[in-house]
């Protein structure tokens, strides 16, 4: 390559295109060379950006990660989306309000799980403050993440749900909806929606196992056992035996029971069970290998928002093979998990 073609790199492509049509052969060749080089640089930049997926976290000197920034607000029965009265801020001693303390601890547990296992600094991997809004609505039987830094907690209706702040797995589940939003951004309907729900259960149960120090054999693999009301006892969902958690549980455990057009909370039983089978086959703590394989798949740029179960399954297998080896126990366990739910890889 000549020195002149290198110098052409700073010339805008439009000018190079004009020069490439020049009658002078030397000018034309130099311009074509520079255009090819320019295209390679652009491709390399695009590939690099696609791998990173997000803008890199800003470099700051005040924040190194590892410490959540929590604030708990009292919504006082209102359904306003604006944060209400501050009850407890980061580092403050427990308040008189049990729901506020449970929310504070649950947000902290979820932050600690993601930081310790993946060095992920909060929901957005860039230190997003975690705001918990308790006593949302009257007898409100739900808890949700609003996609913008707020987790809302209802006190429950006493039948379907009780105080929702009591469920560490449920807090992990809701905050994981935020993580998914920043990673694969799985569309909330059909199979991608069921995957979105399942990923939240998978990491929600791990947050609970992490807090309780439970290995895969000590965990009950039940979601919402601490917040169900009498109508839904003993739990909302069972990852071990989908479809058996309560009288209304319609989750299938494998593709034979897949409900076409079904709710995202129904078909999520299938990938939930695949994770349970894989983690149980590996033993130990779910976050040793099973959780990291699922996390790597969730963060994989090849996981598209409209992914099917099989798309996701194949990415988990590739991640396991890349990290642990093609013939590794981990890769084999992933295969076992998807086989158990009748998804062919």
């Amino acid at each position, binding site marked *: 390559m000549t020195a002149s073609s290198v110098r052409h790199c700073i010339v805008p492509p439009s000018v190079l295109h004009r020069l490439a049509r020049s009658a002078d052969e030397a000018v034309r060749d130099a311009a074509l060379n520079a255009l090819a080089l320019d295209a390679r640089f652009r491709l390399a930049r695009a590939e690099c950006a696609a791998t990173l997926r997000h803008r890199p976290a800003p470099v700051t000197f005040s924040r190194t990660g590892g410490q959540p920034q929590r604030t708990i607000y009292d919504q006082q029965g209102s359904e306003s*989306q604006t944060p209400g009265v501050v009850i407890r801020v980061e580092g403050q001693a427990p308040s008189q309000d049990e729901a506020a303390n449970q929310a504070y601890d649950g947000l902290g547990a979820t932050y600690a799980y993601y930081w310790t296992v993946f060095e992920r600094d909060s929901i957005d991997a860039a230190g997003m403050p975690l705001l918990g809004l308790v006593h949302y609505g*009257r*007898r409100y*039987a*739900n*808890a*949700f*993440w*609003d*996609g913008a830094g707020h987790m809302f907690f209802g006190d429950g*209706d006493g*039948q*379907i*749900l009780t105080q*929702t702040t009591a469920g560490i797995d*449920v807090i992990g*589940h*809701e905050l994981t*909806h935020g993580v998914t939003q920043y990673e694969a951004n799985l569309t*909330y309907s059909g199979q991608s929606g069921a995957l*979105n*729900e399942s990923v*939240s259960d998978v990491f929600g149960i791990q947050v609970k196992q992490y807090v309780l120090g439970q290995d895969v054999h000590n965990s009950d693999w039940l979601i*919402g056992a601490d917040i*169900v009301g009498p*109508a*839904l006892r003993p739990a*909302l*969902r069972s990852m071990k035996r989908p479809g058996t958690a309560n009288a*209304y*549980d*319609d989750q299938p455990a494998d593709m034979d029971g897949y*409900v076409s*057009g*079904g*709710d*995202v*909370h*129904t078909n999520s039983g299938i990938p939930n069970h695949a994770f349970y089978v894989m983690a149980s086959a590996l033993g130990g703590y779910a976050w040793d290998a099973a959780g990291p394989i699922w996390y790597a798949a969730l963060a994989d740029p090849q996981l598209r928002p409209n992914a099917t179960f099989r798309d996701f399954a194949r990415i988990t297998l590739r991640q396991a093979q890349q990290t642990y080896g093609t013939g590794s126990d981990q890769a084999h366990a992933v295969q076992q998990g998807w086989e158990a739910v009748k998804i062919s890889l």
Partner: protein
Amino acid sequence: MRVDVTRRGGVAGVSLHATLDTRQLTETDAPRVEAALRALPWGRLSQGSMGPDRFRYEIVTAGDDHERRVMLSESEIPEALRPLLALLADRGQIRPASIE
């Protein structure tokens, strides 16, 4: 005014259904709820976009001539309709998530 109300979604993964009559409401609430019901965007069968685990509602009324139906996301519920939703919470029957 009789309406079928179904609530779907929510982290619990069940739906809640009830056939309600505005006569079951207090004398103060009933006319307000009826006015709010009349003002709903009847015939609209797609909710506004909502995040994961949010509630969505379907309301069906048997009018004089034909059945009318509307789907609403939680954030689209007018304040005046809340007494009706409180009634749903009290009297609703739980159903599996994927049963229509």
